[in-house]
């Protein structure tokens, strides 16, 4: 049984799933850039199209994102 609070990488979400961003890991300036776009700890996201790149909804707007070795986004499933 998977715990609702389990920490998973963003790309494991399937389309339609909601999650809260726990942490954005990676090179500081890359992480900083994502934070400026609103992708930061505490932000609510919804997976719209899974895959790489994926499309997520973030505070009403859609972002297309290809996370790779430089950055990974950890989320907790559920709206929290």
């Amino acid at each position, binding site marked *: 049984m998977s715990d609702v609070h389990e920490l998973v990488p963003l790309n494991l979400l399937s389309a339609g799933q909601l999650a809260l961003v726990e942490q954005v890991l*990676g*090179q*500081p*300036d*890359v*992480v*900083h*850039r*994502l*934070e*400026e*776009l*609103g*992708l*930061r700890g505490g932000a609510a996201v919804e997976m*719209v*199209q899974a*895959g*790489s*790149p994926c*499309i997520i909804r973030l*505070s*009403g*707007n*859609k*972002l*297309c*994102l*290809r*996370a*790779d070795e*430089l*950055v990974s986004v950890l989320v907790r499933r559920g709206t929290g």
Partner: protein
Amino acid sequence: MTERPKFTVALIGNPNTGKSTLFTALAGVRQRVGNYPGVTVEKKLGGMHFEGRQFQLIDLPGTYSLAPRSPDEMVAVDVLLHRRDDTSRVDAVLSIVDASNLERNLYLVSQVLELGLPTVVALNMTDIARSRGLTIDLERLRQRLGIPIIEIQANRRIGIDELKRALASAAEAKPTERRSPFPDAFQAETAQLQTSWSANGKRAELPRYLAERLLLDTSGYLQDALANDEHNGVAFEEIKAARGRLSAAGLPVPAVEAQARYGWVAEVLSGVVTRPAKRPVSSSDRLDRFLTHKLWGTIVFAILMLIVFSSVFIFADPVMGLIDGWIGSLGEFVGNLVPEGPLQSLLVDGIIGGVGSVLIFLPQIVFLFFFLAVLEDCGYMARAAYLMDKLMVRVGLSGKSFIPLLSSFACAIPGVMATRVIENRRDRLTTILVAPLMSCSARLPVYAILIGAFIPATTVLGFLPLQGVTLFAMYVLGMVVAAIVALVLKRTLLRGPTPPFVMELPTYKWPSLRNVLQRIGERAWSFIYRAGTLIFAVSVLIWAAAYYPRNSVEVSETLAPRRDALAAELEKLPEDSPRHAELSEQLGDLENEIAAVYQRDSYLGRAGRWIEPAVRPLGWDWRIGCAAIASFPAREVVMGVLGVIYNLGGDLDVGEESDQDRLGTRMKAAVWDDTGEPVYNIPVALSIMVFFALCAQCAATLVVISRETNSWRWPIFTFVYMTTLAYLGALLTYQIGMRLPAFISG
């Protein structure tokens, strides 16, 4: 002059907030687009009047953050801090904000407020916010921010006058108090860095905002941008130490910025924005489900691109024909006006012919940018980049490179110009450098004539026409080589960390005709102006090389007297006699022969013969070498040059099938000067095609590359690598082809 001094207003905002629509709403058509000197950042200025006051508007590049980590962002900061001599001091800032995403937009506003400049917020897209069920307490937001907030709908020109009034009074206001959302410890470090920076006598004062950014910028971009004397090393040690102290105090750099600013934003917005419990599904979402679907989305994309590119050809063709006709009649008109001689030839063949051969591409550029601007303005382009990212990532690029490369099949010039949407410098450069490898429409006539003349009209595998397969192979060759070059560049010269591909997918909207026309106008004008000036010069040079010295003994002693005798005899005959027709044909042939002799003995012809040893391994004689040299400014002239060389007259129209056939027949008959063997066979034809497919024979493209990269290094690099590849490709094709028994007989 009784006029009061102009106010300068800088417009700043996130991408996709309707910033350029607002700019047009304020400035109308009074816009000037150029480049900031020294950087490849588009500089857009506009004029505006309000109650007798003159305003100058500066449209800053769209950005999510006022943090200099790229030339675009550096320019925005420099303009606002008045660190550039080429823009006036900013009197007020107009910050456009998307009401449907206040949180992220206010992040940028919080940075702007730190500059201490009078600021006006234009709240746009309230209709989208409302359709998403958001309610915004505007009064409360005004109180919290303490600056004018004007609700506008930029696309419907609502609220524009009110906005102008607010800007007029803001511009007269005194600079406001600088507000910092940062904790005290951070502000103290900032102040200390400022002091120690200017304590060094040689250095100019460091504005507080830049001191802050120096502490926050871990990418090193700003340090490099400010590094101008040997004492900077000391300052950078200090910055490192300050970061260490901040980190120990629980304020790690750069994370402290997002914490501080989003904390401030949350305070400002608490109780201001109310969200619905359940988000309504918008039509944009429904559309996206289909258009970004892996299968259906890709199919729609492919169909859309097919329609766009075939319409570019279909719509542009008649206009190109018209322009071609005008250039022809202009040439004729001037030809009749000016007596025969060097001046006539310079005007008609050199200038009108040369510049005309470039202007002819204008319709394609206009039509292509019309479609691209519509797709961009309605928000589809970001979806296309999303769909194509998977493909492009394999060659080290991102989805954003796809459209510029696809555009380059029509013409590399709009393709190179379309790379402006790629923010990552290395990706953009790579895309620009490989774009000319895509087989543009000017290569098509070369392929068509050689394939028609030398590739047998048989089938392969029983059903595929060999001629069609060959044509397709030429296009594939360009793409494959481009992919390899892109991969190599990204691993060598342009190596560097690939930033994660992040892109906003804007909400779909109806494209605005005004925006679309504006974009087309900008692109068309920059094409005419930028490419036109150099092409003019190059055309004159090539013309002179092909025209002079014009002192052939063979012409003056044998051919010219014969021509004169023929012409005199022709005068005496009645026009309808069969002898007249026969003689006038002879006269035509003789004149073509004279032209050919002149061409052979011209500087260009001598150059062709001089390089013959170099092109002989490619299977070429001096005539082909000469045609290849002459087509370096613009590859489409090759047909004209070959036409002259093979005594057909230079004015043959490759668009006409009969002319193509005539040239093909002459080429088949061409023999080597020394051995008398036929020059052309299948390997030779293929070797010429491969050369044209890979070679950088387009001065206009190289000029545009130099403009877009702001250097001469990259166009030279493009020229050298493509020409080398073209030579090697042609060499391999010929040498391998000659060893395949099936070809030699052909």
